[in-house]
Every structure is written in C-alpha cells, then in structure tokens.
C-alpha cells in the first residue's frame, strides 16, 4: 500500500511527459534507424531495404566530411570563447567591483550591461540571422562594409569568402550565446557564500586570485553543464546556418552542418533513407560527445 502510494505519485507525474516523449522523440528516432537502412525517397509506400549501403556511401561523401569539419571547428572554438567571455563578464558584473561595505558587488552600471548581454538571447534565431545578414552585407549598404568602404577599403566578403565565412558564423553564434551563460554563471556566483570572498579578501587576495581560486572551482558544475549545452548546440546550428550563410551552408560547403544537409538530402533531393543515415550518424556523435564530456569532467562534488 505504502509502495503503491509512492509509485502512484511518481507515475502520475511521469505518465504524460513520458508518453509525449516516446511518441514525439523516441519513436521518430526508431523510425530514423529503420529508414537509414532503406533507399526511401519519401513517396514510396514500401521502402526498399538496402542494408548498410547508405552508411558506406556516407563515409565516402565529401559533403558529410565537410559538415563534420564544421562541427569540429565550432565544437572546439565556440564553447571555449563563449564560456571564457561569459565567465569574465559575469565575474565583472557580480564580483568585479570588489567588496564595498557588506558583500561583493559588480562594476558600475552592471545592471545595464546585464540587459545588453542578454538582449540577443531574447531574439529568435531567424531574426538574429536576418540582422547579421544586414551587418555582413558585402556591398556599401552593409553595416561593416559600409564603414570599410567609406574608409577606402575593399569590400570584405564576410559570408562569401570561403576563408572567412565560418569565422563570421562562429562570431554570431558566440554573440548570441554569451548572454545566456552570463546569466547562468551570475546565478552560480550568487550561490557562492559571500563569506568565502570576504575571508579571502581579508587575507589579501586580489580580484585575480578571487576569480581563479574561489569563483572558478566553485562554478565547476555550472561550467560543465554549460559545456555540454554548447557542445550540443554546436551539433545543431540548423536555423542560423540556414538563414545567415550563403545558400544554406555555402560557399563551397565550408559552413554546412549535418542538420542542414539532412534537410536538403531528405526534402530537396528526396533521399530520405540516406538523410536518415546522416541523422543516425549525428545521433551517435552527439551522444558520444555528451558522455565523453560528462566522464572527463566528473569529479567529487564540493559541498558548499
């Protein structure tokens, strides 16, 4: 009776979300695995079973490796830049002003900066894309190139120069993501008891020491979560690449990502089976990344 009550309670809470999750997430996943073994074109009533042919072709596909390279670069660069910037900003906003009177405070005007940093987070990704399209516009009507050309420079192909396009894209991703992590880390920092900072400050620790010896170690869990989130975001990037880059993934595939290629392959080229194989590959990549990150960064928790 006791057990029934307890489990009944738990099941009552879980039944709806789990059902929804199974129907809308798990079952499409299972279907994608099935379809990846077929040559389904999206119209056939009965898909043709082709075994692992899609996967063998995938590993020889230049487009697939292009997309993987983009994911790799984004995965290396974006989380590092975002986390570093967010840490610095949130430290300055919350603790950077040093201890004045009771407790620590941020630099002057920190509430204003908080709004500024968070603003991009409020914008829909599509709007961010359109906005940056105008900023990166390659002729004299572009926000940056307008200035460059007024100063007598050559127009810069922010999104059309294959050497530059990916970095322009990563810059936008960082710009958009930083705000959220500033808020996340601010919350984490406010959870650190003020006494620690006061005690350290009494012992003569400067801001630099405070940051590296107290803030950073105590924020470890939050950082880890941020890392996983950003890593998974690096495997997505669908909307931004679709809106911002030259014909979704160009020029010459340097900014293409797997989700964009999956969409094109399935709905433009009618190769749903092959696209599902790409989806399966993406699934394993994301899972591997999350598991690895959680493993590598696992450590005994510090009790506050």
């Amino acid at each position: 009776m006791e057990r029934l009550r307890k489990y009944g309670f738990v099941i009552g809470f879980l039944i709806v979300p789990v059902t929804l999750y199974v129907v809308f997430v798990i079952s499409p996943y299972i279907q994608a695995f099935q379809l990846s073994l077929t040559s389904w074109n999206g119209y056939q009533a009965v898909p043709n079973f082709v075994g692992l042919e899609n996967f063998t072709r995938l590993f020889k596909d230049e487009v697939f490796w292009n997309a993987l390279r983009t994911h790799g670069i984004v995965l290396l660069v974006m989380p590092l830049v975002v986390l570093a910037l967010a840490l610095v900003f949130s430290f300055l906003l919350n603790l950077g002003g040093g201890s004045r009177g009771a407790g620590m405070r941020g630099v002057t005007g920190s509430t204003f900066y908080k709004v500024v940093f968070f603003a991009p987070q409020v914008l829909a990704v599509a709007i961010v894309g359109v906005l940056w399209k105008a900023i990166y516009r390659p002729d004299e009507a572009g926000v940056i190139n307008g200035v460059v050309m007024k100063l007598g420079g050559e127009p810069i192909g922010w999104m059309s120069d294959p050497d530059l396009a990916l970095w322009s894209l990563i810059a936008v991703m960082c710009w958009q993501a930083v705000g959220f992590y500033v808020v996340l880390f601010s919350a984490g920092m406010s959870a650190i008891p003020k006494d620690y900072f006061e005690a350290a400050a009494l012992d003569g620790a400067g801001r630099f020491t405070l940051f590296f010896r107290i803030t950073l170690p105590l924020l470890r869990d939050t950082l880890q979560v941020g890392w996983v989130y950003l890593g998974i975001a690096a495997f997505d990037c669908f909307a931004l690449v679709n809106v911002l880059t030259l014909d979704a993934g160009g020029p010459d595939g340097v900014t293409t990502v797997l989700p964009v290629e999956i969409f094109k392959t399935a709905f433009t080229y009618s190769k749903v089976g092959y696209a599902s194989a790409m989806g399966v590959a993406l699934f394993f990549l994301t899972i591997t990344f999350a598991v690895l990150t959680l493993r590598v960064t696992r450590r005994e928790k510090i009790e506050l």
Partner: protein
Amino acid sequence: MSHPGEITRRDLLRRIGLTAVVVGPGAGLLSACATGGGTAASPSASAPAPATSAAFDPKNPFAVDAKKGLEVVIFTGGFKDDYATGLHQPMYTKAHAGATIKHTGTQNVGTMLRPRFLSGEVPDVVNNSGPEAMDVAALAAEGHVAELTALWDAPSFDDPSKKVRDTVTPAALEEGKLNGKDMTLNYVVSQRALWYNAKLFQEKGWTLPTTMEEFKALGDKAKAEGIHLFAYPGQKGPYYMLWNMLYTAAKIGGNKAIIDIDNLVDNAWKSDAMKASVTAWHEIFTKYSDKSYLGLDHTQTQVKHLQNKFLFYPTGSWLEGEMAKDKPETFEYAIAPFPSVTTADAMPYGAIQVGSGEVFFATAKGQNPQGALEYLRIMLSKEGAKGFVEKTGSLTIVNGSADGVELPPGLASAAKATDAAGPNVITSARFEGWYKELFDYAWAQQNILMGGRMTVEEYLDKVQKKADDVKADSSIAKQTRDA
C-alpha cells in the same frame, strides 16, 4: 540523506530504463507510421479514360460528375492564387453546375502534401511549385500522377473541333513529359536571356552589343561612368548565372550542348561550347563586375539593377512582374539576346531561351480524377489563359493567350524577341529537375569559380566528376531526352 524505501534518482532512472525495454516492442506500432503502412501501391496509373463513344459529349469529354467535389492546391508564390479562385474555379463551377471546389493556397506544397500522398487522401489538382515542390518523377513512380495524354487529345474548351494539343506551344508538351509520358502541365511560358534598362540605353545613346567584343567595349564605357557591365546574385538565385552559361553554350554549340548534359553523356560538361561559354562569362564577371554580388541575394541584386548600378542581368521574363512594385519611372525592362561568343556560333545573334514552367499535375488516385483533367482543360481555355495573363503579367503556353492584353514593355520586348529568334530557340536544361543535386553542385562551384578561387578547367572537371557520380548512383532514377 535518503530514507529507506525512498526512490532515489538513480533508482528511478534505472526503472525507467527497464520500462523502456518493456515498452520496446510496442514502439514498433508507432514506428510504422512515417511510411504510411505496408500496403503496396500498384504502380498502374492509368489515366481516367474519356467516356465511351456512345455517351461522348465534346463539351464534357471526361464525363465529369458535378456532384463530386474537386480539391485544388495552388502555390501562392509570385502569381498569388486569385487567378485560381477568381477565374479558373468559377469557370469550372459554371461549366458543371452544382460542383463544389475545395481550394487551398499554400507556400509549403511539400510539407502539406507529402504526408497526404502517403496516406492516400490526395487532392485532385496540384500546382507543384515553389521551394517545396515535390519530386513528380517519384510520385509518378508510385502511380500518383495521372497521364495527361487524354487531356491533350480531348477537344478544346473553346472549339470542340480542335484538340487541346493543338492550342498550346509544342515545346510545352515536350517539357511536360517524364520518361516519355505526358505527366505535367507546364502552364507558363518564359523567355530567358539578359535584361537591361531600355531607357538608360536610350539616354546614353548605347546600342545592344551583339558580340562579346562589343559587350566588353560597352563594359569599358560603363565602367567610366561607375556602372558595372553585368551582375548575378550569389545567393538565392545563383543558378541564373548557370542558366546563362548553359544557354550561351547552346548558342555556341547548338542545343546538343545542353541535351548531352541532360543525358549525362560522358564529358558533356567539357565540350568546346561549354568551355568557351564558361571562359567568356568568367572573364566578364571577374573583369566587369564586382565580387560583392556573390554575397547578395536576387532581390538585393535586382534592386541594384533598378538603381542602374549595373547594365545586364541574366534571368527570365518574370523579372518585370517581380520588381513592378520597386521599379522607378526611369527604368524600363527590355530583353537582350546573348552576345555571340565566336564568329562560328551555331545559333545567330538573337537566339534566346524559351521554356515552360509552373508545373500543374492531376492526381490519379484522388476522389475526382475526371474533374482534375477538366480543371486543367479549363485552364487551357482562351478565357482561362487570358485571365491568367491579365492577373499575373506572365504569358501562358496557350497560343494567343496574350491577344488583346496590353503587355508591359518588358514582356512585349520578350514577345518580340521570340518572334525575331524564330527557330533559334535555346532549350531548357532539364537536369535542373531531374538531377537537382548536380544542378545545385554546378552553381555552388560556379560561385567559387567566379570568386577567383578556381580555373575554368578545374570547374568543368569538378562538375563533370559530379555528373559521373550521379550517373553511377543507382538510387537516382535516370531520365533521357531526344530533343
């Protein structure tokens, strides 16, 4: 600190894991739904045959039953859909008193209709157009597309003594074929070549260049005034440039240059005509244009055209209607044929491309396949076609559909150029629809070429290799054409 008997998070996760295994086989029920079950469709897509001779009524050749509803899906792009709701559909209900039409206008043809074709609840007439247009060949392979031979052989709406086939441009019949069968109605005729501002040319006293040498000489003159000779959009419409190069190749080497590419003939991309064309346009773009266009989309580029920032723009005759709202009084669209590249071009100066587009098809497994054919027959009537021209400012494949309609200057110049071209009409490149992957690859690489990161030889090699890959890929259904 956990109490004995309390479910820990870990326990909970483990239990969910267990239940998931139990649920496992049941999930198979859910997993079947994406492909719409296992009932195989019989690929026999016999078109509804015209009624037997005994009851044959030339006014109602398909024996339409007015009691049956008709469902029509129209792509609401540049043409909107009031030509359907305000014209073709009233004509249908008038011809078949009591008939009801369910109309849907959408920009997402594929998203909306793909699941319906899988489940079998299909509409009767589909305007398969826009960025989400479906793969008609794949649908036809499943028996979803009705053959239109019965439509072409039916008596026309206006004159029962004339077959529908004889009231339209013959090229449209050819281009509506898939694997030799009449499958689609490509309703709109468009002329593709270069477009320029006739008023600017008048004002400056410039004449149209007929050879590449004259073209470049004009480019030098324009450069002195701070105007680029030519531009194409690197985004959203980069294939306008690919068309441009393909059509110029056809002018140099005859339509065979394009037909060979369509048929995936070995080394078709490396033909002398293709090489000459790509070389010429590569020189024009790198010397007489600006790289910044590679980052602009078609609308941005077309607006710059309206501002006289450059002289020539490669696209089709829909351009005038598309830009009508932004067009200043000082701008008047006119078509310019492709300049001759060599002195021995297979087609003389004046050759332009004329093709049909805006695909409609009738479904074979809908509730009213007879009504679908009848609807298309009404679209091909004089009244239906003329109304379309008036409402959209585009010409249809129906002969004389623009008679008595006052055409805007750009369309009028295109009509005149078509007459002047006579038999020297450049064909459409069909691989754009047949092997979209190859088409997309060809323009993506073309942008790299025009950006100065590749030589013409490297470009043609790469695209040829992609064509070879497509040819070797057994999962891609192949098509061929004779002319």
